[in-house]
């Protein structure tokens, strides 16, 4: 045997390298060349993801069940036509106090934008492989000045209309539209929304996040709003607009969303003066009360029977509507607990053009860098949302920046998994051909979480932003959309200009041609005239 042979070394050497690299996870982040090092963990990919994924949810994606549910819905519809069954139940009860709004719209012009093209914008990445996909269509509708509706689904990050209220205000200022959109009827805990006032009494409120405490009769009735209020005679809710934002002080239309298995009767009161009573025949479907009037407040009261009320929507004509569907500590799984049928019926009424999925804050674990399971779940959520809202484009919002306290040094340091989770969210969007927007990048552009805290834009927990912070992020998100619309408008105008130019040249050429023909014929005529006169 060769004495200098080291071929037996490879085993121990590899073992010590593995141990050494694993020990690297113990090194806290430190500054190097002006950059903060990351805490590295070789095992993060292998480490049990169960810690993070032990969400308090019992829902799992069941796309098959969803397909069946939707299929039965369509069968019933077509059967009604073929068999000349009695007229299907009314889904919309109308009460018109004003002339219906005109549905006119006109394409936007580039002068109507105040876009600073030199500013860096965190762009929305659209992974749709179609050249003319849903997201493009959404941008086109905005450029055409058409009415669009956005469902902004998220967790406590946007609770109380944080971020969404400013996003709505910016979008409505640019593209028109009024009203706060969807507001729940009653919620099982106290919340404050600056953008709208709500007071309810006499309801039993349920949350989709507490599946164990749900009675059978409401279990399969949830809308993506995540909250339901069950009320008998006497239950009442009053929604009233606020002047926190210039586009919210009044609106021209309201809708109330109800479910009434057996017949019931409710009273709606507008601006605390005009009343209308609605008798609702029993049916297993979502219904809406549709009130057209200049509205600053709206009251609903159950008179007879029992109804499930989802909430009301305060709306204007045209422009942009943004519905805030925040559900506390929801990682997005809650959508699997909502009824595909109800969601689809709501979509038929409201016509969503865009669904934003803002989740992930509660998923992150310090230092964990593997989120493949959450990525797979997110794919299912996207698939579910796509089936519920078939015409809507989907944007996945990446997780926001978050710092946590180091117990030893009692200083805050990056949680070390924002970028990882964000890239997994991006991967989910990529593989399902929907769009992605990096919240973390936008926050990084604004200085990151430490800057948010020091400027008073976020809570001292280095996790939750406040209204101030929400406004900054909303501006970035809106800018990414507005810039795309602007680019399209400019492109169209240039195209129109080019076509006009071609048309003008064509006309000139025709003119020149006719002139040349005249020039050619004139001497002959003159010659003939001359010879005739001679």
């Amino acid at each position, binding site marked *: 045997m*060769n004495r*200098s*042979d*080291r*071929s*037996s*070394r*490879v*085993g121990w*050497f*590899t*073992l*010590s*390298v*593995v141990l*050494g*690299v694993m020990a*690297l996870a113990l090194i806290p982040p430190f500054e190097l060349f002006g*950059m903060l*090092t*990351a805490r*590295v963990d*070789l*095992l993060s*990919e*292998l480490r*049990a*993801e*169960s810690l993070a994924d032990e969400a308090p949810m019992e829902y799992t994606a069941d796309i098959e069940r969803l397909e069946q549910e939707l299929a039965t819905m369509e069968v019933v519809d077509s059967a009604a036509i073929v068999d000349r069954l009695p007229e299907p139940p009314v889904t919309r009860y109308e009460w018109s106090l004003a002339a219906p709004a005109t549905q006119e719209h006109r394409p936007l012009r580039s002068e109507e934008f105040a876009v600073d093209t030199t500013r860096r914008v965190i762009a929305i990445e659209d992974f749709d492989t179609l050249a003319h996909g849903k997201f493009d269509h959404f941008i086109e509708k905005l450029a055409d000045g058409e009415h669009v509706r956005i469902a902004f689904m998220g967790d406590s990050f946007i609770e109380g209309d944080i971020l969404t209220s400013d996003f709505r205000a910016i979008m409505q200022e640019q593209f028109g539209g009024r009203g706060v959109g969807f507001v729940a009827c009653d919620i099982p805990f106290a919340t404050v929304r600056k953008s709208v006032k709500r007071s309810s009494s006499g309801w039993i409120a349920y949350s989709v996040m507490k599946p164990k405490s749900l009675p059978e009769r409401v279990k399969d009735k949830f809308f993506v709003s995540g909250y339901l209020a069950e009320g008998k005679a006497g239950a009442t809710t009053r929604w009233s607009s606020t002047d926190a934002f210039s586009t919210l002080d009044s609106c021209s239309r309201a809708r109330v969303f109800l479910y009434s298995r057996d017949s019931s009767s409710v009273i709606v009161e507008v601006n605390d003066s005009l009343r209308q009573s609605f008798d609702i025949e029993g049916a297993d479907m979502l219904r809406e009360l549709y009130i057209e009037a200049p509205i600053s407040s709206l009251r609903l009261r159950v008179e007879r029977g029992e109804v499930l009320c989802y909430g009301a929507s305060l709306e204007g004509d045209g422009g942009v509507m943004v519905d805030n569907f925040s559900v506390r500590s929801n990682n997005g799984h809650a959508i699997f607990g909502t009824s595909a049928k109800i969601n689809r019926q709501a979509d038929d009424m409201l016509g969503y053009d865009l669904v934003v999925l803002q989740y992930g804050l509660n998923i992150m674990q310090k230092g964990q860098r593997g989120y493949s399971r959450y990525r797979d779940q997110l794919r299912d959520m996207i698939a579910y949302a796509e089936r519920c809202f078939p015409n809507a484009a989907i944007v996945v919002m990446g997780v926001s920046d978050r710092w946590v306290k180091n117990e030893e040094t009692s200083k805050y340091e990056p949680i*070390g998994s*924002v*970028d*990882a989770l*964000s*890239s997994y969210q*991006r*991967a989910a969007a990529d593989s399902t051909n929907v769009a992605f927007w*990096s919240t973390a*990048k936008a926050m*990084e552009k604004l200085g990151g979480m430490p800057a948010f805290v020091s400027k008073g834009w976020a809570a001292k927990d280095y996790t939750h932003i406040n209204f101030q912070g929400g406004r900054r992020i909303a501006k970035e998100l809106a800018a990414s959309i507005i810039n795309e619309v602007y680019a399209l408008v400019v492109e169209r105008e240039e195209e129109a200009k080019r076509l006009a130019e071609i048309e003008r040249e064509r006309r000139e050429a025709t003119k020149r041609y006719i002139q040349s023909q005249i020039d050619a014929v004139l001497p002959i005529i003159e010659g003939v005239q001359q010879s005739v006169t001679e």
Partner: protein
Amino acid sequence: MTELLRFADDVWHRIVAMLVYDGGAPLTLTTGFFIFAFLLFSFGYVAVRHRAHLRTWYVVLFSLYFYYKLSGLYLLLLLGVAISDFLIGRRVAKARDRGGKTKWWVTLSVVINIAILAYFKATNFFVGVINDLYGTGTLDWQSVVVPAGVSFFVFQSIAYVVDISRGTIAPLRRFSDYLFLLSFFPKMFLGPLVKAKEFIPQIESRNLVVTREDFARAVMLVARGLVKYAVIAKSLGLLFVAPAFAGELGDGGLVALMAIYGFTLQIYCDFSGYSDIAQGVALMLGFRLPDNFDAPYKSATITEFWRRWHISLSTWLKDYLYISLGGNRKGTLRTYLNLIITMFLGGLWHGVGLTFIAWGVLHGVALALHKVWLKVVPWAKTLGRDMGVVRRIGATFLTFNLVAFGWLLFTAEDMAQVGDMLGRIAYNFSFAEFVPMVEESKVAMIMMAVGYLMHFLPKSLNNSAVRGITRLGFVGEWLIVVVAIWLVMQCDALLMLHTGVGGGLPMYANF
């Protein structure tokens, strides 16, 4: 109890999920999974290392698993190629011994192998072209996923049969040895291609030795490879080259030029870095893979470049394509034509497209012109080391730029982008861009400086480094590898933060 069972079940599912092929996370030498797999492998290897036959099977099984984790069920394709050429090799040898014709058997092997290669390389391209011409949906083919490393095992398999027919080697007696030759895991993904004549004795060797210097060299190769591949190439590409090509860093000429030089370094570091790691891992196990790169940008002529760049491929092209075409035995004109055809096919191999063809033809013509030059000019030299200092610097500068602009053809999406980049350099060039560019891409610029510096250092430093590491011993070697891995992970985290992209496969894997 049920809790515990559920936990165990959960862990089991996760382990199973990790062990099966996942197209989104293929196994390469630079993944965390590989380190653990290699750890398990290495102890078993130490136990069997001196028993050649057992060792071969042990390595083969691990290699096949490695390929399965890398490329899924294409494993069957690898096995198919191995079986077919192993059998054909025997037939060829038999025919040769009887003095009969080997031509038909060799042709069969070449046809099978090239058909496989052509199918995977060209199908997507032709389906795309036909759908472009006759409307989308004319051909409703799922896009074909190219098996990782397919060119490498196909080329080696062809070489094996041709070598037998030329009498260079005798056919292998054991199928396991042939599988080892084709599938040895460090070289499975990106080569280098090994010569059967040089590698077979190592497989059959009963006296496997790794000297202290060997181990130190292996450590140096792994650490250097990691830094080149996963730090310099990755960050340079994601932070500077890709955005610069996409026009995100403005449309200035200086940025365009630096993007071309950046890509020149990136493709070298990416490819040679991964080759270094492969060589290092193999050397730790006692196997010597040939050098695939020899500081190629130090070349003073284009001929020298191809002796220093992807050496195993250019040797393969020379031995099995150029010589099969007649090489330089059929007159001067035919020699030049053969060179151009060889490089044209070499270009086509990298990708079926106009830009790759242009790249191949550019190199083929340059090689032919250089041959003419050598013939016409009496003082012309092939190698830089035979030139005077001034001439050598000038020639190196010229060669470097020829190669760099060649890479522009290689990496551009289409000819329009080539024109655009050249236009920017020609008409929109200003040195005033320099300071803003460096400020905007500080990290990438530092990487570029470090990368080129490393490349142009004298080769003798390598041997000094190996001597130094040998003296450091086990602890020093351990520290070097751990620090290199730490750097890679830091870089990965940084890139993830800035670009949302991390990890990823070697760039050259696309070919």
